[in-house]
């Protein structure tokens, strides 16, 4: 099992640890609900250094990224980041990712740890133009500092005016005495805040500085458990749960990052998605709330009133913010409209739920 540069600190803090994507990761510290509320109401810090980072550099870098990703990277100016996915040749998704345009001809791709090797091979295979590729994952730490008080909590650590970093933009600057930290106004929580990328030898210095600076704002460490409840309240997809090698980005509600109409955006398998769009979608990823008591879990069947299977749950939890059970899943298009009644088959018992608009948290 791999460790991040901060694993020993999580253990010292008494975190509940578990293996995730081959890494020994903190699942929770003070409890999922408490950590969740900390991020929604104040500020919390996630060590998500298990995530993979690839650098793609050179004259053909933009063309390569454009070819392998579904979003339109030609529209991404330096200093901006973009959510995207890597379509495969079979109508599914190799991975979802963030694309950072670092500077002209220089991109950073941030991918899921569990898919790192698969992504690397996939992109390499499409790299026919000799683009320089570097996997810097093992040298790079990533902290997500998330929550409404993130700006205030971190401001004393840098000269950059953090409140001026717009959503999905970033800057490279001195932070907590470390040069060239990527300060990115992104995250997976919907609570606002930053993601900080830096060489891993600075991990302890930055971690300690962040907690010292954030102490007055109630900053706490947050584990992967709350990361999951936070992202689910926002309806954000989790690879391996809601999307995978077999799911269409269009069916997953990722049409907004599948730019079929952009000029010069000839990405992998585009013709298939154009056709799928023209034919109409047979199923859709929707959000639902439980009407009767029960918590939906990954792979539970979704049925109609007569008991016919109409879909499958991909993610579910008790929402700490809403105080009710929520989930996402694929359903036949006929049941995809908000307000539709569906039933979740919870241990052979149909429990009523209602399709709602995403995100759950408005």
């Amino acid at each position, binding site marked *: 099992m791999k460790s991040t540069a901060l694993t020993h600190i999580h253990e010292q803090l008494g975190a509940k640890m578990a293996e995730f994507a081959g890494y020994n990761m903190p699942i929770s510290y003070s409890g999922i609900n408490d950590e969740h509320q900390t991020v929604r109401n104040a500020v919390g810090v996630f060590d998500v250094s298990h995530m993979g980072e690839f650098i793609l550099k050179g004259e053909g870098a933009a063309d390569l990224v454009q070819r392998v990703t579904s979003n339109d990277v030609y529209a991404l100016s330096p200093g901006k980041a973009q959510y995207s996915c890597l379509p495969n040749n079979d109508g599914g998704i190799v991975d979802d990712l963030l694309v950072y345009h670092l500077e002209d001809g220089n991109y950073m791709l941030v991918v899921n740890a569990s898919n790192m090797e698969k992504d690397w091979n996939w992109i390499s295979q499409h790299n026919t133009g000799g683009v320089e590729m570097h996997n810097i994952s093992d040298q790079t730490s990533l902290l997500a500092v998330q929550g409404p008080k993130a700006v205030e909590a971190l401001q004393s650590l840098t000269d950059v005016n953090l409140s001026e970093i717009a959503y999905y933009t970033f800057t490279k600057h001195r932070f907590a005495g470390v040069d060239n930290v990527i300060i990115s106004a992104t995250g997976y929580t919907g609570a606002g805040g930053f993601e900080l990328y830096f060489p891993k030898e600075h991990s302890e210095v930055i971690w300690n500085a962040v907690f010292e600076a954030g102490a007055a704002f109630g900053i706490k460490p947050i584990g992967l458990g709350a990361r999951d409840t936070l992202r689910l309240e926002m309806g954000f997809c989790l690879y391996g749960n809601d999307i995978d090698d077999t799911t269409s980005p269009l069916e997953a509600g990722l049409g907004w990052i599948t730019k079929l109409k952009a000029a010069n955006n000839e990405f992998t398998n585009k013709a298939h998605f154009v056709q799928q769009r023209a034919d109409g979608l047979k199923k859709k990823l929707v959000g639902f709330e439980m009407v009767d008591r029960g918590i939906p*879990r990954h792979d539970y069947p979704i049925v109609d009133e007569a008991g016919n299977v109409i879909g499958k749950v991909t993610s579910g939890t008790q929402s700490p913010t809403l105080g009710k059970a929520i989930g996402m899943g694929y359903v036949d298009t006929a049941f995809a409209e908000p307000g539709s009644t569906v039933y979740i088959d919870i241990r052979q018992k149909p429990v009523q739920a209602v399709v709602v608009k995403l995100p759950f948290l408005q």
Partner: protein
Amino acid sequence: MQFPDNLKYTKDHEWVRVEGNTGYIGITDFAQRELGDIVYVDITGDGETLAMEDTFGTVEAVKTVSDLYMPVSGTISEVNPELDGAPELINQDPYGKGWMIKVEMSDLSELDGLMDAAAYGELVAG
């Protein structure tokens, strides 16, 4: 973690407190920590006579769901009424206010097959 000496334990992380022929049953401190924040308990066997290791319900936490198993055979005579409104009692006080069911035990000799605190402590440490 605490494992009181006056309780008997199972490998499935339930405990029993014996009072005559009555057993109070709940889940251990280790179990509640592993589950994390508990959302509710669904006792399916209220009033029923169940055999040792039968499922008597499920416990739903934010992150996961887990079945509950009878540590001993018997008839469920009461379900802790406080858990419906306050499932967090299981996290806060797993051996006290977080008890789940009261069982009229049908075979007290089954208790001899359960673990004492020391043996259970070793199980979860190992």
